[in-house]
């Protein structure tokens, strides 16, 4: 039947396209383009989805993307004083979670400190509290870097709206060529962004470069589902429902068709692990979330 073939198409096309050599021809979803064209097209996709990005994330994943990002933050377990670089951080989801996490850790630290000073006078307690109050983040900082102006704009507006200002900076930059010095950051994250980078190897090399020795690389990204039944359901949902959601909610079918195709084109868990190791990272590992729909890859610069 015609439509069964349509559903099977992603698998067949994928098989065919994987066979293509990685020459100047690159993939944009299931289309074949040059490197420059790919960068341009991806820029346009995010330019057009920026305003509805968060709404669409919630609709497509039924809000589960929030849980994934929370898990990433818990895995990172940052302590106050951490310098985080969030690449492709656009609308700020990871950055805001980082700030919340560090604040709560800091508060607990302060509470513990105060508990140990049970015999202080009220005046001394007040002084201590005031001294630390202005340091609610404990010198932690997060830099959000994104290649797309529209996404950064949305992120800044969100920050203003939600009241985040301290310890947060926004930088326009390309993951393949970061505008930062070597050995600067404690943690580097890239959440649902590395899939859109044209030269993943360059991005990984840059990640290695800007991290301090001992720094951690964390990547949260859609990955491959090995369970065959689940994989078929996932394909059905991705190809049949998501573009429709894109059209109905954001008025943009094509960008969301690109999204689901780009997920299928992205290297699976083991391959990405190998690429991260190639960039020089050690103790590279990955954790599957939801049977491989999403995976968190982690590596250390030693």
């Amino acid at each position, binding site marked *: 039947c015609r439509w069964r073939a*349509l*559903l099977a*198409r992603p698998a*067949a096309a994928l098989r*065919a396209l994987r066979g293509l050599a990685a020459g100047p021809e690159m993939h944009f*979803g299931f289309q*074949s383009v040059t490197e420059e064209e790919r960068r341009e097209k991806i820029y346009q996709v995010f330019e057009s989805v920026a305003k509805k990005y968060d709404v669409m994330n919630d609709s497509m994943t039924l809000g589960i993307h929030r849980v994934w990002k929370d898990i990433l933050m818990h895995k990172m377990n940052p302590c106050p004083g951490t310098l985080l670089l969030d690449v492709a951080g656009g609308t700020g989801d990871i950055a805001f979670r980082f700030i919340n996490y560090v604040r709560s850790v800091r508060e607990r630290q302060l509470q513990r400190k105060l508990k140990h000073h049970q015999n202080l006078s009220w005046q001394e307690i007040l002084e201590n509290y005031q001294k630390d109050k202005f340091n609610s983040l404990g010198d932690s900082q997060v830099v959000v870097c994104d290649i797309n102006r529209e996404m950064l704009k949305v992120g800044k507006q969100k920050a203003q709206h939600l009241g985040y200002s301290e310890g947060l900076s926004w930088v326009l930059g390309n993951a393949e060529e970061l505008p930062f010095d070597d050995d600067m950051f404690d943690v580097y994250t890239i959440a649902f962004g590395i899939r859109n980078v044209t030269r993943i190897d360059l991005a990984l090399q840059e990640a290695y470069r800007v991290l301090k020795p001992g720094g951690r690389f964390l990547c949260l990204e859609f990955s491959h589902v090995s369970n065959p039944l689940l994989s078929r359901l996932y394909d059905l949902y991705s190809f*049949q429902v998501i573009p429709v959601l894109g059209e109905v909610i954001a*008025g943009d079918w094509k960008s969301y068709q*690109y999204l689901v195709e780009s997920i299928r084109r992205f290297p699976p868990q083991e391959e990405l692990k190998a690429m991260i190791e190639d960039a020089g990272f050690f103790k590279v590992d990955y954790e599957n979330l939801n049977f491989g729909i999403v995976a968190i890859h982690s590596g250390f610069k030693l």
Partner: protein
Amino acid sequence: ADPSAAPVPHPLLPAGRARPSHSEPWGRDGRRGEEEEEEELWHQLYPGHIPTSPLQKALLATGSAVMALCDPYRHDMVAVLGETTGCLALPNLRDKMKNHPEGYRILQERPRIRLSTLDMDRLQGLPDGTLGREYVRFLEDNKVSPDTRMPPKFVDNEELAYVIQRYREVHDLMHTLLGMPTNMLGEVVVKWFEAVQTGLPMCVLGAAFGPVRLSTRKLQVLATELVPWAIRSGLNASCVLNIYYEQRWEQPVESLREELGIFPPP
């Protein structure tokens, strides 16, 4: 897109598959054999066409209906609803056009009503009461433009895509002929007329659910005077898509109404 230019890559489809409607539909562009069968399914039949499966069409129809009700400013949702539900009504309309000499000519020549194709100065210079003058007056009074009509995306037949495009472009002329403004009340009346005329489920739904947002006073006027008139006119009139409007700008609106069979507005 210029039909004689090289095919422009469509963001959805692998390069080389997008093609304008005129060119040879089954041409091969040298892709590997195993993909040929699947290529045909992804045929872009006209610029802007997005092929969809029946499941996707069903989801789109439901989603767009809900969204159009929740947010009446989403005109694109009304358009999508029309395209995904018109599979019976559109062929019907196309056949009506084919069997009428003027309609047949429209299908052949495929005229488009756009600011670039209309000579606005000439139309404005026409005497009052003529179709051209009243149409321009309508556009100015309601601050609308014929260029805001969405091109079809989800109709899987090139000719039917034109029919629905023509229907959309003629919509403003319907307003002129019926003498209805573009507020909610006017739109609902035109929808009733169009529902009877075209049988498009989108018009029927719009006509049935549009009044939900009207005040009781307006609903009364609607129910007692406007809707019965719209229905009577719709039933009495011949198919409105069979009029080559671009050749009738000088005709007085009254005479065109009589010719079609639309009763004078209340």
